[in-house]
């Protein structure tokens, strides 16, 4: 058997170059083929480090496979295959290359074994993410891409500083090991990962880019962005006590904004933030069961949100937006898309029989301790809020049929077949993982003998979701629930996009004015000096001066005489 020592993430990166030149018919097969090849490279290897070299005295480990990165790698590469199917109906070779680069950078970062390679791969993935947003045809995408570049730039700077401080302890400290937040190096790397994972105050980039990306780009960004941060936290900061409250804050902010957003793609991004917060909090809890739950929950959330964003992308493709307020009657014209939205929303809400349920129950068991009771409560309530926000609100609105005075002239058709197929494939994965999670439990680093469909686990979940559904339908029927209106909500990015950006522009204008004044003063001074010099040289030009003294030539003649005397005596000395 041919033994190939190659980081699986390098395959999609090389395929990105091929896709730039490939004809349209070959691009989707190239993406899927690259993912399959990378998956084969991943599954064909034994655990352990390989491809270790030394560069400038620093160890560079390009491939280090273990149970932690294997589970993430399998999820990301399967997701890439589904994205290949979903994106095959549109013509955008640049976005195809961007998505492959994003996937390649993320998967590469999963499988390297030293900090420097990790930072390089993560930075490459960040650039590719911005490229994915730039390739979007939606309005505002360019600005969103620039904002993402700024966030990733700050993250990269923090990474570099952290790695530099880590390397002070010696070259071998670059190899992966648990880091300490109390050290400078560990602290900076932790701060960088807080940006990557979308911690509070740094959470706005994800909803910004998902809302502005194309249908395929949004799905890819949801998969290949924040989950790398979850992996890195599990690798570098397991059992870090700061992570539990940070994860809890992510859950609260995520569900609250998801419940209020009209733009469902941004709402899905907030929902992803909430489920990522569950993973982060579980990593902070740190027990073997909690770590296994975090990794499994990341795995299932990848597929659930991939399916959800694909269904929303299909709606976006046909209608031009994915706002709940615009979805009235959509079920008549796009029944398959709304059906897929329902299934994927149920998956995101941890409904029994679907993917996230299988790991959500593990998460509840892992936090079923008295000191973690509030975290347990948040984790238990999250599916109910997401059920209301991402399932009931859009599905009830989409099935609302009004007899309007003037019927629409152009009925909306169903989404393109490949988009429906991609979303259906992702939903199939959600259902298959949910119904038979044993193989997922077998992939986890910790041995897990878990029965998710025991009655004492299924019954409370049915209770929670059922009660939430009944309550919301009643609140909606009585008019207590807010009507779906086209509104945009401010978030923390309104601060730096509004007042801070204005302050920066004002500072820039003031500095430009100072610079302009300085340039004008310099110009005036040089003009005056030039005029004075010209006048003096002209005064030396007069051929018939009365005397050297009265003609004004005395001073320069005296200066010349002194100069010649100095030179004469210098030579003599």
């Amino acid at each position, binding site marked *: 058997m041919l033994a190939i020592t190659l980081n699986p993430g390098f395959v999609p990166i090389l395929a990105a170059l091929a896709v730039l030149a490939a004809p349209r018919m070959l691009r989707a097969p190239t993406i899927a083929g690259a993912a399959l090849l990378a998956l084969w490279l991943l599954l064909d290897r034994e655990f352990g480090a390989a491809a270790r070299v030394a560069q400038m005295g620093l160890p560079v480990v390009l491939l280090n496979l273990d149970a932690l990165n294997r589970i993430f790698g399998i999820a990301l590469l399967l997701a890439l295959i589904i994205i290949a199917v979903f994106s095959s109906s549109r013509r955008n070779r640049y976005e195809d290359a961007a998505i492959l680069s994003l996937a390649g950078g993320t998967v590469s970062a999963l499988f390297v074994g030293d900090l420097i390679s990790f930072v390089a791969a993560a930075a490459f993935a960040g650039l590719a993410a911005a490229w994915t947003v730039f390739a979007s045809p939606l309005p505002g995408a360019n600005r969103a891409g620039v904002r993402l570049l700024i966030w990733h730039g700050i993250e990269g700077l923090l990474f570099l500083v952290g790695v530099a401080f880590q390397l002070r302890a010696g070259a071998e400290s670059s190899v992966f090991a648990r880091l300490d937040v109390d050290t400078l190096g560990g602290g900076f790397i932790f701060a960088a990962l807080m940006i990557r994972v979308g911690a509070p105050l740094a959470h706005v980039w994800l909803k910004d880019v998902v809302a502005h990306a194309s249908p395929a780009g949004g799905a890819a960004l949801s998969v290949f962005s924040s989950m790398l941060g979850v992996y890195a936290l599990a690798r570098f900061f397991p059992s870090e006590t700061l992570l539990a409250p940070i994860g809890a804050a992510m859950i609260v902010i995520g569900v609250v904004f998801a419940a209020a957003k009209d733009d469902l793609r941004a709402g899905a991004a907030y929902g992803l933030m909430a489920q990522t917060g569950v993973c982060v909090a579980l990593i902070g809890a740190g027990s073997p069961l909690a770590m296994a739950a975090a990794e499994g929950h990341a795995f299932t959330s990848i597929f659930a949100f991939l399916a959800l964003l694909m269904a929303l992308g299909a709606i976006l493709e046909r209608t031009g937006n994915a706002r709940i307020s615009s979805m009235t009657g959509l079920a008549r014209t796009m029944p398959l898309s709304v059906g897929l939205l329902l299934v994927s929303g149920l998956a995101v809400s941890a409904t029994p029989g679907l993917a996230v349920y299988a790991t959500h129950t593990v998460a509840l068991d892992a936090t*079923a301790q008295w000191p973690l009771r509030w975290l347990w409560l948040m984790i238990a309530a999250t599916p109910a809020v997401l059920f209301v926000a991402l399932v009931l609100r859009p599905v009830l609105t989409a099935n609302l049929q009004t007899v309007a005075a003037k019927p629409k002239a152009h009925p909306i058709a169903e989404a393109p077949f490949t988009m429906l197929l991609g979303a259906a494939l992702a939903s199939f994965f959600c259902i298959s993982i949910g119904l038979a999670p044993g193989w997922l439990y077998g992939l986890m680093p910790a041995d897990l003998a878990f029965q998710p469909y025991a009655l004492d686990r299924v*019954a409370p979940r049915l209770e929670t979701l059922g009660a939430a559904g009944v309550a919301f339908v009643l609140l909606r*029927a009585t008019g207590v629930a807010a009507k779906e209106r086209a509104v945009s909500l401010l978030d923390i990015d309104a601060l730096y996009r509004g007042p801070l950006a204005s302050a920066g522009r004002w500072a820039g204008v003031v500095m430009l004015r100072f610079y302009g004044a300085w340039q004008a003063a310099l110009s005036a001074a040089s003009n005056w000096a030039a005029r004075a010099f010209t006048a003096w040289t002209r005064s030396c030009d007069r051929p018939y001066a009365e005397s050297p003294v009265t003609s004004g030539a005395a001073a320069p003649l005296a200066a010349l005489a002194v100069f010649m005397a100095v030179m004469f005596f210098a030579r003599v000395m």
Partner: protein
Amino acid sequence: MTRTPPPTRAKGVSGLVFLFCATAGGLGLAFDLTRNDLSSWWLGAEPGAAAVIGLGAATLAVLAGHALRFLLRRRGRNETTEERDAGHHA
């Protein structure tokens, strides 16, 4: 004879959703209440507490929707977009 537009009437699947949710919730509550587990480690894990959590979560979602729209609704020309930047001159 006056020409008035026909009244719009709305129909949907709220009833069906209510039925499904009530059935699922009722089944879950029935199984939860009849299980013989006396080792609940705290109030939130007691039989029937999951239904309370669900009710609270739905209420939280509705209240959060109202609160955020009241407090954080983007006002002005670009009310429905998030494109208004400090440097945006469109």
